């Protein structure tokens, strides 16, 4: 068994609006001199510390937990999962 950190990034799907990201872009970033920034998207990241036999089983375990507990809504969110071996 090894230790892994599994990063779950939850963000709105492309095409679905992101009021928080738009506000940060329009009301903070573009107010300065950063005119070349085109888009900001917000999201949420969960870091799971897991011990598992390999990278894949760490990933699928976390994936299952997120699905079953409705940690994100598959209707709205896009989920990216990255695994880092510690």
């Amino acid at each position, binding site marked *: 068994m090894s230790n892994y950190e599994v990063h779950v990034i939850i963000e709105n*799907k492309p*095409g*679905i*609006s992101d*009021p928080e990201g738009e506000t940060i872009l*329009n009301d903070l970033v573009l107010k300065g001199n950063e005119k070349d920034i085109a888009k900001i998207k917000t999201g949420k990241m969960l870091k799971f510390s897991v011990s598992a036999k390999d990278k894949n089983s760490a990933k699928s375990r976390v994936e299952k937990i997120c699905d079953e507990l409705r940690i994100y*809504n598959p*209707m*709205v969110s896009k989920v990216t999962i990255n695994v880092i071996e510690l």
Partner: protein
Amino acid sequence: MSLEPQELEELKSKIGRDPTLTELQIVAAEWSEHCSYKSSKKHLKILPMDGPLVIKEKGYDSGVLDVGGGYVVTAHIESHNHPSAVEPYGGAATGVGGVIRDILSAGTRPIAILDGLRFGNIEKDKQARWLFKNAVSGIADYGNCLGIPTIGGEVEFDECYENYALVDVASVGFGKKENLIKNHANKGDLVILLGGSTGRDGIGGSQFASDSLESEDRSAVQIPDPFIEKLIIEAILEARDAKLIHAMKDLGGGGLSCAISETADAMGIGIEMDVSKVHTRESDMVPHEIMVSESQERMLIITSKTKLKKLEQICKKFRIGCSVIGIVKNDNQMHITQGKKTFANLPTDVVANATLLDLPSKKPKYLQNIENDKKLKIPNLKKSLLDLLGSPNISSKIWVYGQYDHEVGIRTVVKPGKDSSVLRLDNGKFLSVKIDGNPKHCYINPREGAIGCFEEACRNVVCTGAKPIGMLDHLQFGNPKDPEIFWTFLETLNGLADYAKDFKIPCVGGKVSLYNETPKGPIKPTPLIGVIGLIEKNPLIPVPITSGDVLLLVGETKDEMGGSEYYEYIHHHIGGICPKVDFKSSKNNMNSVLEIISKKLIKNAHDCSKGGLAIAVSELCMTNNIGCSLKIDKISKNKLSDEKLLFSESHSRYLLTVPKSNLTKVIQILKKHNVFHEKLGTFGNDSVTFSKNNKQILDLRVDKAQKIWINSLRDLILNV
């Protein structure tokens, strides 16, 4: 998204050619059940919609009532059932946003939100719990961000809503009569889209709402942005004060397609619109996507060229988008272009008026024997009462309304948790608003059940001293093409129309939501009735009950256990006689209670509804931390068993708390109106005890009951 074959043929013959892709999408959105009311519109005409206080203007999305002193109240009700069933947080929040913009589009400021929520069995069903929790947060977050109080509503759970959600939102607006938008437009006026950007979210939402929810649809999710909504409210009210708005419409179901065609049709004008002028979120949107997108927080405004600059300044100040997207013509056509290229050119009356249907109806088979009474084994009454107090439908909803800001705006003089909340108006009067539904009654007897919901909402506002002046109806049913379901719809409507006519309460707004089907079948008939009541001078603000106060029951208790919480929750029995409203006693009881309140003779008035007398009395005792001993021998003209006396949900009943010194005067008024009433007992000590024939049949410690009643919903949600 598509038209049915015969509808496509009809469109072709009306315009004399094949429609373009964009035209097809526009018409499919507008002819959907959600926007066109094609199944229900013919029948809705039987509701009385006029009255001395009703102000009518073409193109209004909300009902307008004159409340005197140069002020008006507006009201509207909407639902967001399908979106909430797949994304409860965003669906419920955008539902609030939509109904608020309906209020705004008449030119009035939204001052209150009410919401009616229905879900599956949350005791057993995890999905129902998830939907419930997130819908409540959605409403709370959106309403609280806007600074509009959520002052009331109701929550109910029933197995017929498994894997589904009914999220109904009503809103009330207030403003000066002179500031109402008188929708008008002249040739050459500009058509402006104001507010958030147009994206691909919510494409096809109204079509989606008109289909049964079989597979999860991904595109129809809308993301709420309350901060833009707040800016829109303030910008529009400022533009209204500067008289910059000739006509206005909110963008709801069907997006620009519906807003443009309905506005043009209502005012008898034509509109030429260029989709390349619409501020979009994504750069590659094609014309028909822009036309049917249901992105939230947008308003359509018509103004003149000379006023444009001022309007743009206001929008700039509030940092909201403002694009001139079209121009008013006098050819009654909606002409959609992208630059110079035409994508659609249709007569507005064809688009805005789908052919209305006359669907067949047939009395459902299940109703044949449903009102037959069944002998049930009676368990211990005290245990039943405690179980009911802790049941999701009856337990205190403080976990819900505790998350809502119900005070912001400092108008809320009677707060949620009572029969009905009361708002202070600027003209010295007060407004009381309540929404009520009861699918359990409506399933057993659609007509009587619907009348019951109407009367219950009236009773609730009457308990604050308000006279009902208007009603909102929200009719929610399954697939109308099923004749049995359509029959229940017609019965409901007839019942509501009869009561409204008899009581001269005009219907000032409403909504029909059909195709509410779960994987297990149609929902029970779920009409939701909102009643707006006006108090000229003195609202009844409940005063704490003290030892020695007398409890009176107005209205007769009958053998009407069908659809009661007692039958359904304790016995899991669906059936029995549905409570019926007797119009004559309903009116007498109402008038006498109003007279008693206006003479300031009582401390508290509370209606008897879900759970019957036993629950209503317990609620009074628990909220006032006091016991009460009552005799229930004479509350019915017939001989009824103990559990029927305690738990029957007969209508037209009120519990009045009278200080001893006023008792004679109160009884005189009741006698004068020839009202059935009974002195139940006096308050005191720390237990509620019911007795019959001098024998105690039930006693309950108030503090113990209170713990169960207040905490059980929260505990269920938090899993403790």
